[in-house]
């Protein structure tokens, strides 16, 4: 049982790292950013190519892959997402989806369409509470907790973080203070993209890298962002860990339903207000009484 919970925490950690960027773009620009999956997937493939060049060092290649992806993320933000700000969600969805398609095809062109495995960089199992577990998974979870703490500090202490938090609440209010909101959004967008690459690279040894990995993680991350609340960074952390447990526990008892259970939870969360309203109406109509 303990290894199932640990697996859930690992999956949750990866989902958290990926979802931060998505949640920020959702909260600030009201845009569903499919291009986030492109940054994630290309980052992982880049990491695989950099690994032999950098003497097989996992951390060094991770840093290098993130460093290479940051300018690309900036370009996506500057030339696609910012141009579509305020045009409604449909055009943004289509444009960022197009970028995801281009990125997927680019991966197939450069790296081929077959899956690529990445070996576990630590490999030594340890004993926790009498159960043998992979050390690597514990490290991944601790990384996510470290990122969570660092982001908490960044958003509550650093001036850029404070401006972004204020703009999440009231964009026009911050703009009328004479601050260039777009500049700060760019910065957090790039940070979010870097964390997505990090999440992807950390996930690669647990599964394999394949061209459509961006699509797959995006669907799950939408659920994380919705359950946690759009633009709510603390909520994202807890919803990612919670949904990680949903995946792990469903997977233990009914493997085929693991990912779908996440969407069941997401649907219930999304529909809690409409269902409550519907029930209230039905009850009210039959004269049993109005609870509201």
């Amino acid at each position, binding site marked *: 049982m303990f290894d199932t919970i640990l697996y859930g925490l690992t999956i949750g950690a990866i989902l958290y790292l990926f979802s931060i960027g998505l949640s920020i773009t959702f909260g600030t620009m009201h845009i569903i950013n499919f291009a986030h999956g492109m940054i994630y997937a290309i980052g992982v493939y880049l990491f695989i190519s950099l690994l032999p060049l950098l003497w097989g060092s996992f951390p060094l290649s991770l840093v290098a892959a993130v460093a290479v992806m940051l300018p690309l993320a900036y370009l996506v933000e500057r030339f696609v997402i910012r141009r579509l700000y305020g045009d409604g969600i*449909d055009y943004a969805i*289509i*444009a960022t989806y*197009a*970028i995801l398609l*281009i990125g997927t095809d680019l991966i197939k062109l450069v790296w081929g369409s077959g899956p690529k495995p990445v070996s576990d960089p630590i490999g030594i199992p340890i004993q926790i509470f009498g159960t043998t577990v992979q050390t690597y998974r514990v490290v991944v979870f601790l990384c996510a907790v470290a990122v969570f703490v660092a982001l908490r500090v960044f958003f509550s202490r650093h001036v850029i973080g404070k401006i972004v938090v204020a703009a999440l609440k009231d964009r026009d209010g911050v703009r009328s203070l004479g601050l260039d909101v777009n500049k700060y959004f760019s910065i957090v967008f790039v940070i979010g993209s870097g964390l997505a690459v990090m999440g992807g690279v950390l996930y690669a040894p647990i599964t394999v890298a394949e061209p459509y990995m961006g699509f797959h993680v995006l*669907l799950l991350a939408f659920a994380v962002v919705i359950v946690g609340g759009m633009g709510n960074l603390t909520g994202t952390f807890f919803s990612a860990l919670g949904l990680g447990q949903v995946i792990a526990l469903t997977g233990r008892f009914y493997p085929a339903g693991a990912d779908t259970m996440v969407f069941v939870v997401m*649907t219930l969360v999304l529909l809690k207000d409409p269902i409550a309203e519907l029930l209230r109406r039905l009850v009210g109509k039959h004269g049993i009484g109005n609870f509201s």
Partner: protein
Amino acid sequence: MALIAVAFLLLTVVMPMHWLTDFAVFCILVLSFDLLYGYMGRLSFGHVLYYGVGMYAASLALVHLAPNPFLAIGAGIFASAVLSSALGFIVVRTEGATFALVNLALNQIGFWLAMSGLQAYTRGEDGLSSSVRAIGFLDFYKVPVAFGFMLVCLLLVFGLLRMLTRSPFGILIRSIKENEERVKFLGYDTLRYKWLTFVIAATLAGFAGTLHALVKGFVAPGDMGPLENARVIFAVLIGGAGNLYGALVGGVVFETMINLLATNIPRWEMFLGIMLLVLVFWFRRGITGYIADLARKFSRSRGKPAERLP
């Protein structure tokens, strides 16, 4: 209407007829999505769910009840109508990104049910094959007959939607797209109209699904996967959203492109992505919108008053 029939018949000269049969089915799906997105302004990422429900209901009816095509169509329409009426009650209460994503989640659940949850009935990934008995001259194994039948179905759906969008009901749902608050102020219960439109669109998508099951004789979960929605959305945008002719042009152009690209250009996904970017940034009104602009410019340059577009 006659124009559409003539256009489709003319296309048989340049394209194989079984392509056009598929195009007609796809166009019905695109038309149903256009009602929801183009006319009412609700972008759904899970419209294909109802296509899949119609598809499986028709196929199951063919296998278990009787190989009668009309029974299959009835079963598919009934199943998608019932499901969309129930889900629609809840779904139409959401807006914007939430509406798009809740539909996506429902589609994912439906896809999973077809894939593994209800494997005993749907045969999962292997897909479900069915056969149709010929009724009189209506033999779906003859390509020209199948093509003719699909074309008639397409014209029927087109006629129905044209009637609907030109009626006061059509004006009302377009007003909901522009500004729902004001429609409420006028005293309309917008929720009821949104629900009705959702159900009509979903049922028509289910109808397209039944035709898919009839013409292919084989259905698989891949046909209702959540990513299939992208094809429908792109087709509507290429043609021009909020215009029934646009949906038809978009459906035909998009499918032709995919068929040609997938066989001739190995990097078709990249090509498609680049084209979509061009579409979003410089070509938003789609092919029909562009033609309308051109026609207006042309008539103005000849000194005639610009014609008002319907």
